């Protein structure tokens, strides 16, 4: 009786190879798919300036003041960049919980006009990071609302962590 019982069971189990593959899959799924936390990142817009007459070369440029406008600023110094910062790429922080952002560019020399503004809008998507590591706001669909610069081009409309892709290219006439 006992051997008959075992024979019966093994006959069936031989047909069930796929089931064991699934149980193995569950084991791997539960033990092998865990990793480290993905760190949250602050959304930052990357800007560069180019000449209208020579759009292929990026300018190293300085303003008397670049600052955020039309929003509450908590930083001790609201000025993001000053005349001392001659840069080819400007990193501008994007606020959380809003669908638009505005910046003011002051140039007292008047080379690019005394004050210019740049207003951008975008879409947000909020995701929980894997393994309960936090919440990340993802920015995409960046569009120009308005600007007093000569010409503005959205080069990349998505902000990604650790990406050096320039989002906004500003073309000036001088």
């Amino acid at each position, binding site marked *: 009786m006992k051997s008959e*019982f075992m024979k019966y069971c093994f006959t069936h189990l031989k047909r069930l190879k796929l089931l064991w593959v*699934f149980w193995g899959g569950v084991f791997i799924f539960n033990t092998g798919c865990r990793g480290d936390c993905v760190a949250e990142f602050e959304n930052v817009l990357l800007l560069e300036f180019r000449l209208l007459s020579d759009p292929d070369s990026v300018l190293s440029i300085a303003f008397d003041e670049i600052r955020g406008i039309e929003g509450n600023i908590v930083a001790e110094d609201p000025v993001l960049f000053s005349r001392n910062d001659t840069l080819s790429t400007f990193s501008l922080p994007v*606020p959380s919980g809003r669908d638009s952002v505005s910046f003011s560019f002051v140039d007292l020399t008047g080379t690019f006009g005394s004050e210019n503004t740049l207003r951008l809008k975008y879409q947000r998507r909020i995701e929980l990071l894997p393994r309960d590591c936090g919440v990340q706001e993802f920015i995409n669909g960046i569009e120009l609302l308005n600007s007093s610069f000569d010409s503005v081009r959205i080069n990349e409309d998505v902000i990604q962590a650790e990406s050096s892709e320039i989002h906004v290219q500003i073309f000036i006439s001088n």
Partner: protein
Amino acid sequence: MYKFLFLISLGLGIAPYTACAQVSDTTKVPLLQPVAGIRIGVDAFNLALQTVESDRSFWSVEAEVLLGNRLFLAAEYGQASVQRLGLGYNYESEGQFFRLGLDYNFWYRDKKGLGALFTGGIRYGLASFDQSLFFEGSSTYWESFNGDIQDEGLRAQWVEAVFSLRGRLFNYLYIGPFLSVMAQLQSPQENLVEVNDIPAFGQNQALQIRVGYSVQFLIPFGSAYKK
């Protein structure tokens, strides 16, 4: 090798194999037979899991209409919620779900319903749920944002391939593990907050695997099932 696997399976559910001692016969069993009974039960594994994981709650009732001993019409209804709490955020997803499908019993040659069941089947699943997220967006420059976002009336649909091993523990009590592979048919609607958890499906991704342990009671109709 098979002995080893068999011993492992004993750990997963002794009862399914107690009935293996029944000798099969070779008489032809029609695929569709008159309704012979109904099995009603719960997913004991997921019920028990919530005692370990206090941030989730789950209950469901599953029923199986026995169209003879080869085909079973299966249905499940339940409610589930999950909370994910972290530094600066609190996410909750809560809703109800149902599953509907068919199971085929590969071990139908055992005496009608008295022996072990090895079933493979398909399910259609639908969840209707709400989610909420409170979070503090941080910025070193702009004022921090405290968001409290609610999304209601979300839906998700999926299909499942389900495999289960069950056996009779007492006269009409069936227990045993099951495994299901789920694939989303329809993702939840696009919202400001990406859906993270879908009731009964799990984390919002294309494929999911679910395991559980059924405890079911058989209500026989007529004299098809004898002690």
